[in-house]
């Protein structure tokens, strides 16, 4: 009898346990959904999707689909378009596609879910922005999707999670009052395991830069890494007591992650004040650096500073391309990183040790070279109260328009801008959260020649240039590499185009009617490959074009904020397969 009672008790316990589990599961229906971490980290196996900002966690911006290829790309035609309805901020983002649904971050905190084959709107969510001036720009570069949720940062410095199926708000947490820090979020978060990792702006304000991690399920703040060390921390000695709290060093773009090494890589922006440096003697760590963190704790594993004591506004905030390089039987795990100063560094991504550095633009005045550790030598001084001519300009030898890497060819594709500037440093009162440029700059063409821009294919280790394509004005938009042997992008005058990845020859173009400063992607639905290109130059960088190319000024397209999606005609792909899927 005791046994029966005990058995009955056990049964009740099991039922209670099952009930509890059922309750927990029912409480977390959205969180348990797709895409899982396993899928995200192996996204190269799913070229039908574009599941993270960089296309994969190595920031390759490569899609293996080859239905659209060098032979048939001329037939590419628009199949649907989507207007975000908000012109302020254009469309700078990277769309995300998961299992036939596209998630699109528009300007002014607008989020959409669309049928990726038709453009039909499934839901929309508009985060209400308080009455405020917006630091930096009203556009956004994207969002992240994981575990049945959509994660994004806002222009007033919040991180928000939505239900991916309905667009319903789940949680919302403020990073810091935008009025206090002069910083906000204009880029996509990066999901690493159970965390949402978010960078922020602030390099042109009196602000102490940081990177934050939140629990993806609850929104709870998990860790913060300050990009400027505080008192007692290594690197604090590279700042003055006056400036360490206001030295900028923002994390305004998106990092990469290596699952084998469990290292999170993030590029850090410039120190503020940008040009006036009297208050910040020293190297100013970790401004203009790559930092490698343990994503579980936010602890620093290594750093590599590209521009010590920056006086030129040369952020190192851009993407970290993780490239497994193999030549003559020797394998190297590289981190390849283009700096705003027109130099590209190749590092050993396990240790942060310098491997190589090479220029990706033609005209550099700010350094004479690098030493055996890759540290710049012969850096050009920018004395206060004088004018200094510096190449490249503070807008960069390129800006955030991302590079692409084709692992099948082994080449890395990157944009270059040949623009210089005159820097005029000036003392400025330091007030937390207020702008702190420390002077101004005036754009100029390089000495003895007009300004120009280009797209290049490089060997990612040696920097050997394989080809160059000269762009119209500067190319602000990111590059996309595909398994069809193509490089896609779009120019500021409205032409979406495709280049041959092996020769740089232009094979296709289409006038979308709007300049481009976003990031194209590729994906497929039901066996049909699509190329999606954001149009509408919300970036402040587009303002450079009429200054340097006055002959283009009257032709610059009007404001837009539209996603244009291309595919081959259905008749030409009937019966064809989408390889790589």
């Amino acid at each position, binding site marked *: 009898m005791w046994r029966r009672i005990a058995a009955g008790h056990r049964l009740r316990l099991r039922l209670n346990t099952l009930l509890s589990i059922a309750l927990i599961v029912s409480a977390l229906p959205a969180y348990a959904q797709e895409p899982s971490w396993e899928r995200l980290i192996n996204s190269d196996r799913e070229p039908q999707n574009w599941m993270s900002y960089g296309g994969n966690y190595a920031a390759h911006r490569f899609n293996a689909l080859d239905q659209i290829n060098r032979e048939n790309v001329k037939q590419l035609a628009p199949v649907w378009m989507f207007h975000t309805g908000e012109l302020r901020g254009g469309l700078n983002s990277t769309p995300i596609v998961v299992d036939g649904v596209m998630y699109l971050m528009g300007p002014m905190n607008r989020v959409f879910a669309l049928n990726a084959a038709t453009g039909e709107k499934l839901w929309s969510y508009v985060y209400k922005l308080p009455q405020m001036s*917006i630091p930096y720009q009203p556009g956004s570069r994207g969002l992240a999707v994981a575990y049945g949720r959509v994660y994004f940062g806002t222009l007033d410095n919040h991180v928000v999670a939505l239900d991916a199926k309905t667009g319903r708000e789940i949680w919302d*947490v403020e990073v*810091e009052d935008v009025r206090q820090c002069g910083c906000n979020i204009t880029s996509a978060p990066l999901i690493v395991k159970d965390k949402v990792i978010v960078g922020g702006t602030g390099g042109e304000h009196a602000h102490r830069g940081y990177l934050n991690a939140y629990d993806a399920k609850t929104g709870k703040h998990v860790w913060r890494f300050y990009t400027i060390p505080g008192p007692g921390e290594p690197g604090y000695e590279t700042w003055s007591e006056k400036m360490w709290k206001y030295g900028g060093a923002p994390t305004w773009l998106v990092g990469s992650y290596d699952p084998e090494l469990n290292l999170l890589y993030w590029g850090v922006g410039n120190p503020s004040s940008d040009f006036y440096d009297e208050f910040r003697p020293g190297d100013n760590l970790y401004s203009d650096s790559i930092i490698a963190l343990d994503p579980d704790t936010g602890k620093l594993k290594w750093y590599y500073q590209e521009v010590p004591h920056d006086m030129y506004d040369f952020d190192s905030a851009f993407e970290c391309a993780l490239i497994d390089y193999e030549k003559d039987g020797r394998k190297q795990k590289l981190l390849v990183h283009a700096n705003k100063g027109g130099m590209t560094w190749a590092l050993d991504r396990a240790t942060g040790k310098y491997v190589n550095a090479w220029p990706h633009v033609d005209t550099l005045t700010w350094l004479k070279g690098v030493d055996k550790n890759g540290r710049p030598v012969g850096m050009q001084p920018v004395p206060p109260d004088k004018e200094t001519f510096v190449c490249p300009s503070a807008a960069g030898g390129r800006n955030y328009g991302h590079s692409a890497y084709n692992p099948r060819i082994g080449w890395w594709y990157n944009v270059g801008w040949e623009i210089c500037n005159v820097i005029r440093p000036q*003392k400025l009162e330091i007030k937390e959260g207020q702008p702190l*440029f420390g002077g101004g*700059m005036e754009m100029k063409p390089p000495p003895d020649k007009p300004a120009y821009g280009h797209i290049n294919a490089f060997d990612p280790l040696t920097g050997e240039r394989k080809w160059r394509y000269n762009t119209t004005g500067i190319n602000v938009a990111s590059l996309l590499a595909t398994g069809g042997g193509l490089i896609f992008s779009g120019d500021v005058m409205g032409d979406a185009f495709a280049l041959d990845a092996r020769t740089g020859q232009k094979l296709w173009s289409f006038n979308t009617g709007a300049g481009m400063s976003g990031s194209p992607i590729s994906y497929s639905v039901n066996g049909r490959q699509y190329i999606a290109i954001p149009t509408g130059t919300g970036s*402040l960088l587009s303002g450079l074009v009429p200054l340097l190319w006055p002959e283009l000024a009257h032709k610059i397209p009007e404001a837009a904020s539209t996603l244009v999606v291309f595919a081959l005609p259905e008749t030409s792909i009937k019966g064809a397969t989408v390889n790589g899927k």
Partner: protein
Amino acid sequence: MESRSRSVKIDARAIAVMFLPFALCLSSFDLLPGSRAAQPQSAESQIEAGKRIYLGSCSMTYCHAAGGIGGGGPKLRDREFTPEYLTLLITQGVPGTPMPAFKESLNKQQIAQLVAYILSLSPKKGAAKAKSDTQPQSQPQTLDPHLSGAAPKTETATPSAPERVKSDVAVNDSFDIRGDVEAGRALFFDSAETRNCRVCHTAQNRGGSVGPDLTELAGKPPREILQGIVAPHMAIEERYATITITTRAGEKFTGVKRDENETTIRLYDTSTLPPVSRAFLKSDVAKTERLNTSAMPADYASKYSLKQLLDLVSFLKSSNVSLKDLF
């Protein structure tokens, strides 16, 4: 005989650490041209001073570029601006765009200089008005009622009678500690501290809206402000009452109600700081209860030194408060 000792309701540990180094106190730089005491200026010197301000604050190519030729922002030369319009825009910024409000970084004289310089960029259209008498209106009109810059009015709690507490610290007249407004400001907004005041409260138009706006505390007695920090449960405003939401799935969340509509209720979950706003479908909510506790942590008396508490009170009073002011 009247005792010279006074009571202070402060944790003894606060006293123990009161001589620790103070929070970073910002020094005032006074570097910007025109930031010194106002003096009459000629039109030329007004424009020249404005030009220097423009260089440091406006001439980035992302903004209006050198000489106002326009960059990421609109061009400013060869335009038809009135000084009043420019003053208004520079002072208050343009919400929804990257144009900031310079009222917090430039004084009126500096803004007038900047206006004079910008007008001088349009010699045929605006320069005639760019004279030294182009002073901004003392109260610029607003483009939009939301631009007035006035702190939103918040109902303040009806103060309960301060509770006299038995003395655990004796302070005589020859001993005093003085708070510091700037140190208090640094503490209030310290971004390195996730439990700082600003994650929940607003002061001087900055900070969170989870708890009451503290801007209007300036008129309260220092003792009452201190009590609100170290014993928040003693006066809870109904709007900020602590509630618990129990979902039908059995999960419990505690915090302060943010807002609600027909379908959804939002709660600032204060179980962790910074607070997380959580949205619940009303159909998923089984029970909502009001608690008699404050959502504010109750341990600030031990977390902060006495000096730091005085710094905070000083910041909220906008004047340096001394220990003696608490009695």
